């Protein structure tokens, strides 16, 4: 079985870029999406995570390719060659089952390209027909592979290799179409594939992707302790059919995108196996190589590489809170990467590296450095949602430490809203909620109770829930108790210092409660109820609360009481109007943003333009006819008169 597969693969190899494989990839994805309920299929799992998104991107890519084909035909004379190719590559829907000729294609194309599923060969023009002959030969075993597929699905290893190979096609497509969506799709599939990755799988994938003399391949293989794999396979494949050997040299350079993709897989594999030192070393070398490349199609992959790079270093002792932590050593490379990314307008890497740097600084509590980084850099607004969420979280954290609660609150709200709610990102969701709760308390607000009822938060936020209860009733003793009981938890969450600042808020809330419930209360009672040390303190505290606008009251020093003022009707003020305005603004910006987020099929407007043009022509003809008719009706003299 392995030998057979190997032969399949080596047949596969030369035409990974060919149309046939493209079709296969598609059929594979279709069949697996129809097999959704099969638990063994990893792809279906990926589909399940974001079913709508995957589907939509499928559709989008289809239509995109339709356009491409359309373009190549309208381009002009060179369409003939394409057309020949097309006879094989274009797969009609069932109604055009008869063998399509190229001319038929071309004419059909103009009217009914919506009906067709078109696969464009992402090949270069240099492809000669001799190659194609081989392709066709290669197709035969491919069919076999298709028939085999149900069987191979049972084998997770084969499935993983299959998936990796499918992803190669996507990456190649991403490069030829210059469309980052394909790359993102590949990156998305990593998480579902992660469990299946073993060093064997990786070795096989690597060996299949590279010619045997490739240095990159040997580098990758040595990182996963499979350095011998290349030679083994090389030895066995040399015995294989002759055209295979011929095909190998003709295969073009392996794309750097595929290099990087395989490197990411190696990184993940090393990380999952906790080979941290090795991973760190491998990643350092990888980043050196990446820095030399300047390809926009590589951006999102490079970002992922940096992410794992930093992840490795975080786990090397001495661990972060200590000032001599290993993470400090990667600040220099990360800063260099940030600079390069900004200069190249590489948004993905820029966003990722910035969040990594912030995380790095905060882990050793170098807050002023983090603040400087933020003030000297602009975070790319078009970064991916997850990066924005991370950035907002770190920003909120820094601002909270700097006492800028309102700003911190805004950022944290953004972070919690943008954070993915899927199971895997629960940690981030919890962490940002914890911080948000504390900041809300510091601002004098009481967080919504519903927050603590969410299933994913209930247990993690329990200490915070108790804290909120204590603050909301202004119970100073209870508050101090909770802080002492859960101090280790709070320290671990990094919220301890913030919580210590809450003491004054507890007091303020207590005073507010009393001011609301009593129209007049003696300072002595306030002192007793809040557990303060002296009446004097109470007087100063109440005076401060009055100045800060916490309560509407006045003090009588001689008789020692606080007198609350009558609270006016809130509806007589501008408050409701302002809140209403705020909401309208939010709705309008939501509308604007959703319009901006819409994705329109490429070149769709051309069709409209065409029809518009036709309509205009028809109109013109009509107008002409009418005019001519007019001339016919009237005599020549009248016409002259008119002039």
């Amino acid at each position: 079985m392995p030998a057979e597969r190997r032969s399949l693969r080596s047949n596969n190899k030369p035409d990974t870029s060919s149309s046939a494989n493209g079709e296969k990839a598609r059929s594979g994805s279709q069949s697996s999406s129809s097999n959704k309920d099969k638990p063994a299929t990893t792809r279906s799992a990926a589909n399940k995570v974001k079913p709508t998104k995957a589907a939509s991107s499928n559709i989008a890519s289809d239509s995109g390719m339709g356009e491409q084909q359309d373009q190549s035909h309208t381009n002009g004379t060179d369409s003939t060659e394409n057309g020949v190719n097309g006879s094989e590559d274009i797969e009609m829907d069932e109604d055009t089952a008869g063998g399509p000729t190229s001319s038929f294609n071309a004419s059909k194309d103009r009217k009914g390209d919506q009906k067709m599923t078109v696969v464009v060969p992402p090949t270069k023009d240099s492809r000669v027909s001799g190659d194609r002959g081989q392709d066709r030969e290669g197709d035969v075993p491919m069919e076999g592979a298709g028939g085999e597929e149900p069987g191979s699905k049972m084998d997770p290893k084969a499935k993983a290799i299959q998936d990796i190979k499918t992803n190669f096609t996507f990456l190649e497509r991403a490069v030829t179409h210059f469309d980052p969506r394909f790359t993102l799709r590949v990156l998305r599939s990593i998480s579902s594939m992660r469990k299946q990755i073993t060093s064997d799988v990786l070795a096989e994938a690597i060996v299949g992707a590279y010619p045997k003399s490739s240095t990159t391949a040997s580098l990758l293989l040595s990182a996963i302790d499979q350095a011998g794999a290349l030679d083994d396979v090389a030895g066995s494949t040399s015995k294989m059919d002759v055209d295979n050997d011929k095909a190998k040299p003709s295969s073009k350079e392996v794309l750097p995108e595929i290099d990087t993709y395989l490197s990411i897989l190696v990184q993940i594999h090393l990380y999952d196996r906790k080979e941290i030192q090795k991973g760190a070393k491998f990643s350092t070398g990888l980043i050196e190589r990446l820095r030399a490349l300047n390809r926009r199609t590589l951006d999102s992959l490079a970002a992922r590489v940096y992410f794992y790079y930093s992840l490795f270093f975080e786990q090397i002792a001495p661990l972060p809170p200590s000032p001599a932590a290993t993470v400090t050593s990667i600040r220099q490379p990360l800063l260099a990467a940030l600079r390069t990314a900004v200069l190249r307008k590489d948004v993905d890497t820029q966003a990722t590296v910035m969040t990594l740097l912030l995380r790095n600084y905060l882990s050793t509590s170098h807050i002023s450095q983090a603040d400087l980084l933020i003030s000297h850099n602009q975070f790319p607004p078009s970064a991916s949602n997850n990066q924005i969420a991370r950035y907002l979280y770190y920003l909120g954290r820094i601002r909270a430490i700097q006492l800028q609660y309102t700003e911190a609150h805004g950022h944290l709200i953004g972070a919690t809203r943008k954070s993915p709610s899927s199971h895997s990102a629960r940690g981030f969701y919890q962490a940002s909620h914890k911080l948000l709760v504390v900041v809300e308390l510091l601002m004098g607000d009481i967080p919504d109770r519903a927050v603590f009822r969410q299933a994913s938060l209930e247990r993690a936020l329990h200490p915070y829930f108790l804290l909120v209860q204590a603050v909301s009733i202004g119970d100073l003793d209870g508050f101090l108790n909770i802080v002492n009981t859960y101090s280790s938890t709070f320290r671990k969450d990094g919220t301890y210092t913030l919580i210590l600042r809450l003491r004054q808020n507890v007091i303020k809330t207590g005073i507010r409660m009393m001011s609301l419930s009593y129209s007049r209360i003696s300072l002595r009672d306030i002192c007793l109820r809040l557990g303060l040390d002296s009446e004097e303190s109470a007087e100063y505290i109440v005076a401060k609360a009055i100045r800060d606008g916490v309560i509407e009251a006045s003090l009588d020093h001689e008789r020692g009481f606080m007198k609350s003022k009558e609270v006016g009707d809130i509806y007589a003020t501008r408050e409701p109007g302002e809140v209403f305005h705020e909401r309208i603004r939010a709705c309008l910006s939501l509308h604007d943003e959703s319009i901006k987020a819409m994705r329109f099929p490429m070149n769709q407007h051309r069709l409209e333009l065409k029809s518009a043009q036709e309509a205009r022509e028809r109109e013109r003809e009509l107008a002409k006819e009418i005019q001519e008719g007019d001339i016919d009706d009237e005599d020549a003299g009248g016409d002259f008169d008119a002039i």
Partner: protein
Amino acid sequence: MASELKSLVAELTNAVNRKQFDNVNTLLTRAKRTLLLQNALIPTSSTDPQLLVLARETLELGALSAIRQTDAPAFTRYYQQLQPFYDLEREANNTLDTKTSQRSKITGLYLLLLLSSGDGTSFHTVLEGLVEEASLKERNVEDDPFIKYPVDLERNLMEGSYDKVWRETNSERVPSEDFALFSNVLVGTIRSEIADCSEKAYPSLPISNAKNLLFLESEGAVMEFAQQRGWTLRDGRIYFPVEPEAATRSEKDILVASSSIIENAIGYARELETIV
């Protein structure tokens, strides 16, 4: 060179203790020049530990003398220069002698300086690092008396327990004489805070009570203070200036409100136009 530095440092310590600041300043300049020649002003891991200790001591003395001369910018400069030395100290495999280090004292003074200049952001930024560091060693920041002092002061200030702040600055609770230098500044700060609060909180106040509230020595001082703030004194009572008339303000409010409402409504209309 090292022996020369040693004698310089000894001389310097002497001079600082005897508060001969002119002498100190010239000595400091000389010491810093020597350090610079030996490349020890900025520590590296390869610098001789002996030299590092001397360099650190020089800078610490410089910082202390700057505080005693109430030269805040110079103190901040020394504090920043000391940071690399302290970072070396914190590393696990340090070869430096930490016993002679006055790190917590200098840091405490810096915190107090930030507090008295009202720079809460920097204060908490520095503190956050300290808390993190202390929790690494399974300790509390408050275990260190030099750090505890500014932290407590800050907490009381934020809370509004000005009497506690007053007591802290006034008595022997100050951990070292250098910390007492800030007391005047702090008392000035809380006095103006209290004055701000009183303006809002009391309609009027007897002068004798105000004396206690503001921690002033005599009623004469109260009157002087009241005049500075523009309070009116009548029949032995202080009357705080009342806010501008509510009626005129509300009229102005309506004007502002109506214009903003009109503006908003036009804005909505425009947005609706673009949507429909």
